[in-house]
């Protein structure tokens, strides 16, 4: 069985924060000017921010922002990418040529730059961030799915299905998807980490959530201005972001090792 350990714990905590956050009695937007920049203490574990709002509450709210964005971007990217990649490779010919060119064009841009440009055009807002990151994100999945399909479509079981007259859709769903899903799932886990970072980056630039909503990226941006007088404002979201991304990457690595049949048999010897 895959070893979850501390990264698993951190991720479950992140998930729990994200899912229960909206239902907890939090006051992430309650401004209390008396408490401006008060450091961590007995009343408030992580202190207050530059408007006297509790940092812990905002951290929890930020968790759900980053989780929401990561979930939707990765889901949309995986669905669109897999669909486009698989069909393009399976159909082949001119369709495939065109799709490959489109993928190349997208890959020619540095991903985050394209996302910045897109959210700049569409205007600030968290929904637009999801759209922008999905437009950038599907390409990687499409390329992976296409490569996998190309190598699989001449396998004997697919050829057999074709000769038996199975309909195309069934071949793709029954005979191809199960085999290409493993690398796609692993790619998706890494995708989560990069989307969390990208969302933080866009929010840091002011293109993500709009005040007074919180996101870890926007919290780091606000906190950076007060680093000299109130380091807790930037440390709390910064460490949270680091832990989540590190955990996702570690678990992704372990998942890859676990799903790699060759690697597993070696371990068992």
């Amino acid at each position, binding site marked *: 069985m895959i070893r979850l350990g501390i990264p698993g714990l951190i991720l479950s905590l992140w998930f729990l924060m994200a899912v229960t956050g909206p239902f907890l009695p939090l006051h992430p937007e309650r401004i209390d000017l008396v408490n401006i*920049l008060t450091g961590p203490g007995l009343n408030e574990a992580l202190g207050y921010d530059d*408007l006297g709002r509790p940092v812990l509450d905002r951290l929890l709210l930020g968790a759900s922002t980053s989780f929401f964005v990561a979930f939707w971007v990765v889901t949309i990217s995986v669905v669109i990418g897999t669909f486009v990649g698989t069909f393009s490779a399976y159909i082949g010919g001119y369709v495939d040529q065109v799709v490959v060119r489109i993928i190349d064009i997208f890959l020619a841009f540095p991903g985050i730059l394209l996302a910045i440009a897109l959210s700049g055009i569409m205007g600030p807002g968290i929904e637009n961030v999801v759209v922008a990151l999905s437009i950038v994100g599907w390409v990687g999945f499409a390329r992976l799915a296409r490569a996998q399909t190309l190598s699989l479509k001449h396998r004997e079981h697919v050829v057999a299905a074709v000769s038996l007259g199975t309909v195309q859709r069934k071949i793709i769903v029954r005979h191809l998807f199960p085999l290409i899903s493993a690398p796609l799932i692993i790619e998706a886990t890494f995708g989560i980490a990069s989307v969390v970072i990208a969302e933080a980056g866009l929010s840091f630039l002011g293109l993500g959530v709009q005040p*007074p909503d919180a996101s870890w990226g926007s919290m780091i941006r606000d906190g*950076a201005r007060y680093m000299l*007088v109130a380091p807790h404002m930037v440390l709390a979201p910064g460490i949270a972001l680091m832990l989540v991304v590190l955990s996702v990457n570690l678990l992704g690595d372990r998942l890859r090792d676990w799903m790699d049949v060759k690697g597993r048999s070696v371990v068992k010897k």
Partner: protein
Amino acid sequence: MLVSALLSSCAKQPDDAIRFGLSSAPISLDPRFATDAASARLNRLLYHRLVDFDDSSRPIPSLASWEALTPVHYRFSLKENGRQFQNSRFQKNKSLSTADVKATYDYILKSENASPHRASISLIRDIRVVDEDTIDFYLDRPDPLFPGYLVIGILPAEAVQSGRKFDRMSMGSGEFSFLDWPEDGLIRLKRRSDNQIFEFIHVGDATVRVLKLLRGEIDLLQNDLPRELVSYLEKQDGHKVVHRGGSNFTYIGFNTQDPVLKIDGVRQAIAYAINRDEIIKYVMGGKTRKANALLPPDHWAGNPSLQAYEYNPGRARELLSKLGYNVDQPLSITYKTSSDPFRIRIATIIQQQLAEVGIKVDLRSYDWATFYGDIKEGRFQMYSLSWVGIKSPDIFRYVFHSTAVPPAGANRGRYNNSKVDQLIEQAEKGVDQAERAEVYRKLQEELLMTLPYVPLWYEEHFYAAASSIDGYTLAVDGNYDGLIYVHRTQ
């Protein structure tokens, strides 16, 4: 020995310079084109202008004194002082004459030169040189505020005629001469009275600016720090921080054509719902003053007896409930602001204060160009901005007259009040200053009552300096003229 002496003298040179930290880099040092605050403040050091202002914003002679021969004919006589142009590769020992004044103003008045200052002096019909020291300005229409418009730095006539660009150099007659602009974010000037070198260093990040001051990499900085960093600086040894009240006016503007915001009760409710005392106490600097009008009370046309909208959430709720809104059925308003973190911070507090009385504010922050474009086009319900460096009450025509809708003026809220129009016109026709001031006071009363703007405050100015820096003074509009007298004590 000799080598070491040379080395030490080389090393000592930059230490003698007084270094000034700028929060935003100047864009152009050409007084005909500069509009941003940093450029305008440096230009005041590099160039002399015909007219300047005293502390209550009355125009006073700078290069020239004047008399109005008729309401449309002004005669300016150049004075003895401040007329020596800076020596440069192109000119030696040239003294400022009326030909230079004419050349500079003729250039700005030519529409193909597209000077942003043209609109403010477009009432000039003709400029005639009488002799070396006397020059006549003829106007299209009488305007008693006219001398106050002649605040643009005078360039040498030859330089204007040569078509040379002055955005990254200077040939002024000011107290400072331009040395060089070796890289982006570093400008070096020399004070002409004692050859003291000044370096203007652009440090965008507030925290870095504070750290540079503490480490001695800059000697002086002015404004643009969060209050928390100012108090942090005040606690450090070896530095001093000095505050003074300012005249730069921050306000909330409304689109008076908007179906909701054209209702007087809504705007009044907003005015009553904002707790300015609390914001000033916790977020603004200590010398920030509450504002009731665009001109501060110590301005010659200011009105010190205006009845302020004091914080009164009960009254705000009452006004809103008359219109059918309350905390459970809130009124929704979009509030646009620039993406400057300090502005967002203030806007977020106002958002919270308005939520408490039943106005749900949708806060939108945009980069400056988008924001400013939207404001000029009238694409907003509510926004906040500041008027910086306002001296002359002609601002009222520019901002509130019904004919001043952009691009003709800055009536961005499409405010249309015939009483205000009439008062503005009446003030412009006033015979003497006292009479005009009286009408302007009435006008400001009417504006406060009808609320095209909710006035917020006049932001304070402060400077922080190493303790070896002495003699710097803060101006009411935040200019850098204090550098003329600043010196380093050893």
